[in-house]
């Protein structure tokens, strides 16, 4: 254990940094996707709702590892070899971020939709009856109330997504699991290495949960 920490500690820490970077990119775009798709699924417009429904079900129905292979290998292959265009490649970070963003975005959309639907329809009607436009009522009245019920689920989703970054080791992104695999293959100390890696995830996630609890309490005033 000692030897791993001394020789590979900095490497693993850097890998953790990569994991966090990937998660951050993924979550950032996931929030945007989630908000857009989530809003689409509560709109009156049938086309918007249908698009949102198809997106969510498609993403939820496909394992993320398949999505990752598809984006990293499949899409450039289709573009370059099948369609005969050229020059499309993704870095592992790009493909990984897109993959996380799509996956997490679909779940976020569901959380946001459920949060909005949990607010009494009378709130929207009251806003509209005063002459406020739909979007304005959403912003000022519905979303502030919905966000409170959404926070625990959003944090939960953040944690899942952070752990899901490990799946992206399959496309060669040098995040924590991928790096740890290399360490194990050099040292053969698999128990020690994985124990350290597990502890690193645990610490980061506990910190995240801690921050979330604080935020939740603040929002409840």
């Amino acid at each position, binding site marked *: 254990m000692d030897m791993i920490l001394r020789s590979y500690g900095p490497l693993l820490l850097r890998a953790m940094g990569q994991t966090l970077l990937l998660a951050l990119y993924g979550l950032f775009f996931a929030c945007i996707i989630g908000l857009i798709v989530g809003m689409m699924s509560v709109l009156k417009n049938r086309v918007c709702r249908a698009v949102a429904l198809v997106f969510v079900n498609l993403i939820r129905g496909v394992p993320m590892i398949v999505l990752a292979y598809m984006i990293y290998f499949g899409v450039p292959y289709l573009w370059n070899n099948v369609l005969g265009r050229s020059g499309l490649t993704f870095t592992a970070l790009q493909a990984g971020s897109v993959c996380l963003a799509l996956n997490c975005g679909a779940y976020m959309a569901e959380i946001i939709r459920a949060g909005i639907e949990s607010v009494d329809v*009378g*709130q929207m*009607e*009251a*806003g*509209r*009856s005063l*002459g406020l436009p739909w979007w304005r009522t959403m912003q000022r*009245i519905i979303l502030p*109330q919905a966000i409170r019920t959404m926070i625990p689920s959003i944090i939960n989703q953040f944690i899942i997504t952070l752990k899901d970054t490990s799946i992206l080791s399959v496309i060669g992104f040098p995040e924590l699991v991928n790096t740890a695999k290399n360490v194990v293959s050099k040292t053969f100390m698999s128990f020690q290495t994985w124990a350290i890696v597990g502890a690193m995830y645990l610490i980061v996630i506990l910190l995240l949960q801690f921050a979330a609890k604080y935020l939740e309490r603040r929002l409840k005033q």
Partner: protein
Amino acid sequence: MSEERKVKVRICGLQKYFKTHTVLHVLNGINLEIMEGEVVVIIGPSGSGKSTLLRCINGLEELSGGDIIIDGHNISSKKVNMNKVRESVGMVFQHFNLFNNMNVLRNLMLAPVDLKKATKAEAEQNAMAMLERVGLADKAKAMPRQLSGGQKQRVAIARALCMKPDIMLFDEPTSALDPEMVGEVLEVMKELAREGMTMAVVTHEMGFAREVADRVIFMDGGRILEEGTPEQIFGNPQHQRTKDFLNKVL
């Protein structure tokens, strides 16, 4: 209505269907005019379409057919800005629908400030005046959940009045209240009526209808069966359905 009073709301051949698994025909050919300053009370059994009629006037329900013309604006036309129309049509709901995420004062100020009808200072002054009027000036900083039902409904009325509407719609404003709180809300509504506000009120409070209404409308099965002065409707109803209904509720 021989005197030269302006028609505020004109409803012609209004149809409303709800399409769920079956088609529900809720309003079937409603024709109605509401004059400026008139108080129209709509009564009738539940499911007769009273609330839907009010919700149509405010554009909360899409019309399936017919026209509603408010102050010359045909709200069934796509060209009419419904938000603009709603600014002059206040609505009070059965379940108050105060904005739960803001205190009483901000509930009142939100729409006027957001729609640039008033500066913040003006809106606040106006809001306080309205709260004064409904007897709740001391509750300005309270959150909706801290108020009783009667207080909530009075705040809701004040909130609608802050937009300085020409017409006020009341959708069973006292039906969700404890009996001892009905009076305070009706009192505010009577005051409004005395001041000449054009009002359409759906209610089961027959005493209020008798006392305040210029005209009472009896609805059943999505149609207006009978209308007239309170004396006519309560004293000498023509239709058997009206008689049956009044016998049950009076």
